């Protein structure tokens, strides 16, 4: 039973479905609780779609690597891409107290990543950027 999987997708949204399927496959193989699989799927949808939508100029082809690793009671999730530098952790948290009329459309993605994962870090490696996330199985 593989405890590591890496998937490389192009910077278009068709890659997102591949990522979600791979997460579900990995989760089943590792017998991960459904809430962990769901949490990983949510944060990967946020991180990969952010990389696709904000990291590349129109027409520029890029590659995004997604890695999942099971290490004891932790699941390590990595998203590495060659798009332009952007540290999602510098994005200020959204104001969730605003009423319906003033609630902005968007801004929730990073908030969900921070809340669903136990650890999140961002590093630059050469010309690539790497978002590392950890989900502890006991913490769900």
């Amino acid at each position, binding site marked *: 039973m593989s405890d590591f999987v890496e998937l490389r997708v192009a910077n278009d949204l068709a890659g997102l*479905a591949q990522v*979600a399927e791979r997460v579900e496959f990995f989760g089943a193989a590792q017998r991960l609780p459904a809430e962990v699989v769901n949490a990983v799927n949510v944060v990967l949808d946020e991180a990969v*779609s952010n990389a696709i939508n904000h990291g590349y100029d129109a027409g520029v082809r890029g590659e995004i690597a997604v890695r999942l690793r099971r290490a004891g009671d932790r699941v390590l999730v990595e998203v590495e891409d060659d798009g332009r530098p952007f540290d999602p952790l510098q994005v200020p948290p959204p104001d969730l107290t605003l009423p319906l009329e003033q609630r902005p459309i968007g801004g929730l993605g990073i908030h969900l990543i921070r809340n669903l994962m136990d650890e999140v870090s961002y590093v630059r490696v050469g010309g690539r950027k790497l978002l590392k996330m950890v989900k502890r199985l006991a913490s769900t």
Partner: protein
Amino acid sequence: MELIESSTDGVTIMEPRGRMDTVGAKPFGDRVVELIRSGCRQMVIDLKHIQYISSAGFRALLIARKQSADTQGKLVLCGLSAEVRRLFEMSAFTEMFTICGTREEGLAKAK
């Protein structure tokens, strides 16, 4: 994303099935907006076949909610799993929607 639509006593019921993520939220959101634009004022969105919602899904729901409010319509959600409810709470979306347990309760609220 599969969208199952039905109607009971004038209330439109929308039942999305699949991943409410960047890819799935698009056809879902587009269809809900289209329904409200074409005059639908009472709608129940049954989320029982949705396992998780990412920010793209919340964005689609927020647009639908705002549009429904603008047209004095009723938009009710039902069938949230414990997981989906937790994501709603995390996003502070719970208090912006009328949320019912079952479809029957949702239909009663939407009338």
